[in-house]
């Protein structure tokens, strides 16, 4: 029976779970969890603050995507979202679900070719995909209930994530494949990236089928919610 290690380092995880469950300010929760974890491992407070500061500054590269905001804001100011809706309204067959299905296919296929940087929430979803999906739903149903509008946007963000996660692993030079290979190499097991990437294909297919079906079914849910809203505002079922 091996020694059970001290459970004290897990205090940070408890703080995080508690904080997210009660919807406290996530930035505050994460910072407190980090400081508590450092203190629990026996470091002094100044050392923990320094470690947090170093790791924060070292990961500034994550924020570079915000540099896209000036150009997106500028285009939105000039009518980008309105134009995106106009374009979609010219396509008779377009529905919210079909718009999202097309983006899912594009996102997954380009990610599988290593073109992960062609998508993204700031670059594509906010300025183009979400307005197009909303516009398609408006064409079919007129003005949308607020909750429905929110769900369409949330689905658009989800499509970007699912498409990228389950597309990129089919590409041999992506970070996760290289990480697996490096880890196994350290353990004395040599594998080729191509072997690893091949086994990402079954899950990639299921991801497209499952999420693609969900976005297509989503059209029916939009219709149902719009009908329910119309009933509520008319004070009874529609004729």
């Amino acid at each position: 029976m091996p020694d059970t290690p001290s459970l004290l380092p897990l205090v940070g995880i408890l703080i995080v779970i508690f904080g997210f469950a009660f919807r406290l300010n996530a930035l505050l929760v994460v910072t407190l969890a980090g400081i508590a974890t450092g203190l629990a491992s026996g470091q002094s407070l100044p050392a923990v603050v320094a470690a947090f500061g170093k790791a924060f500054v070292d990961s500034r590269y994550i924020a570079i995507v915000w540099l896209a905001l000036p150009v997106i804001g500028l285009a939105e100011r000039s009518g980008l979202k309105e134009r995106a809706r106009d374009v979609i309204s010219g396509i008779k067959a377009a529905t919210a679900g079909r718009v999202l299905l097309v983006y899912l296919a594009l996102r997954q296929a380009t990610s599988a070719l290593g073109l992960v940087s062609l998508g993204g929430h700031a670059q594509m979803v906010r300025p183009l995909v979400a307005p197009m999906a909303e516009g398609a739903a408006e064409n079919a149903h007129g003005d949308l209930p607020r909750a429905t509008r929110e769900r369409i946007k949330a689905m658009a963000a989800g499509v970007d994530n699912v498409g990228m996660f389950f597309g990129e692993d089919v590409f041999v030079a992506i970070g996760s494949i290289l990480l697996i290979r490096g880890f196994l190499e350290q353990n004395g097991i040599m594998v080729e990236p191509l072997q690893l990437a091949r086994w990402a294909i079954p899950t990639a297919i299921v991801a497209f089928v499952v999420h693609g079906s969900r976005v297509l079914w989503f059209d029916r849910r939009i219709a149902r919610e719009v009908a329910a809203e119309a009933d509520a505002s008319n004070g009874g079922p529609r004729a």
Partner: protein
Amino acid sequence: MITLDVIYVLMGLLTGGIAVVNARDASNPRRWRNTLFWGVYALLFFAGSYLGDFVNGVLVLIMVGTAAAGLGQGTREAVTAEQRAASARRFGSRLFVPVLVVPIATFVGSLLLKDLTLGGVPLVDVKQVTQIALGLATVLGLLTGLVMLRPPVSAPIVEARRLMDSVGWAAVLPQSLAALGALFAASGVGNVVSALATTYLPLGTPVAAVAAYAIGMALFTMIMGNAFAAFPVMTAGIGLPLVVQQFGGDVVVVTAIGMLSGFCGTLMTPMAANFNIVPAALLELTDRYGVIRAQVPTALALLLANIVFMAIFAFP
């Protein structure tokens, strides 16, 4: 040579500009808090590489304290809906050009920049080429937009301020989570979790071990916010010793599908802030967990599929 520090100067200009616009906006009741928050963030971009770790840590704490006190948002709109509609009719589909320049130039840049040299020295830091390409692509997109749309000079920063303040402190959450992950790793959180898992989980059959590994990857990814952080811990704890060595599973299948099981966890956790929380803020959803809700059914279905695939393909 163009390094990340050049891009950080651009980030400093952006966040500093957002602080200035906030300071001048009386329609935001908390404008000085916003000014402090974005101003300190700008300082971290300009000077973070030169200040000491402790000073950086204190600056981060000032940002966190300001965010916890509550940030505000200006209500002034620079243009009306009618003006936007008229502008949309005027420019038509040309409006897509500056926006599409960003991803396309990022992609082209990440391919081309790494081979360019200037007097024998690489033009860009090869290790950071994708991030640098993204930073430069946004500048190219902005210049394209300025030339095509001819807005007032202040428009880009005023509009960036509008978008950034609608995201608010969630914009720096991914960085804080990366810092938390580093502290977790330094404190040995992973070892404790894998020791607990192997001690208390029933792992007597190949299928049970496969399920424990895949679900463990998803759960630990949800805690760490990142499949990359969970993978070495769970694979060293369960994947290699049990599924591969004890039960004879194929190592390629097990590790490849194990990583994908972690991705299922990424879809379900607020800890993966840049995929789940930031987009909710960026799309101005009232439900902070709206994106996660939209993804959970897919994530659970794919986790089940991963367990089935691993159990079938790893034991031929």
